[in-house]
């Protein structure tokens, strides 16, 4: 994304807006992660307590999802950079 056409006031405004958006994105990601790991790991409702097996699954699920997200983010940034390079030729 190209902010170079923006003046200083606009860039400052965008920074604040983006910061707020990152907080919202984080919260959204958090609830998506809970939903995803709950759905994948919890299938036994004969007890209300998380079994140790379920807990391990949730920990691995969280861990793996974050690593996945990070990897996708890195590839996404590369592809975005490539697309922009191609577009400005």
């Amino acid at each position: 994304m190209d902010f170079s056409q923006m003046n200083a006031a606009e860039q400052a405004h965008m920074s604040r807006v983006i910061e707020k958006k990152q907080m919202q994105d984080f919260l959204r990601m958090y609830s998506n992660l809970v939903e995803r790991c709950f759905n994948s790991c919890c299938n036994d409702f004969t007890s209300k307590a998380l079994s140790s097996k379920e807990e391990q699954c949730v920990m691995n699920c969280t861990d793996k999802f974050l690593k996945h997200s990070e990897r996708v983010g890195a590839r996404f940034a590369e592809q975005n950079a490539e697309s922009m390079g191609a577009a400005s030729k």
Partner: protein
Amino acid sequence: MSFLGGRGSTPAGQVNPERVEMAMQELDMITDVFNKLVSSCHNKCVSPRYAEGDLNKGESVCIDRCVAKFFEVNKKVGEKLQSMGAGAAATGATQSAFGTL
């Protein structure tokens, strides 16, 4: 679930937009979590055949346990995220697209 704190206070009679916005963000988040909870426990506990309009005993018990378990998962995931200082991985799009700002 409340980890968005307030900041300072405002003279009575005036609305601090920042504080109101934070409360709104928390409200949005709670609604989002609640909707996911309703949907997840419906999928886990309620049979989609709909032979009757009442929850039967088995469904009711399942729902109670489902909510408790969902809260436990919410807590575990939250602890894990804090221990990892996450947020970085999560906001990948914003970070990678706006890294230059």
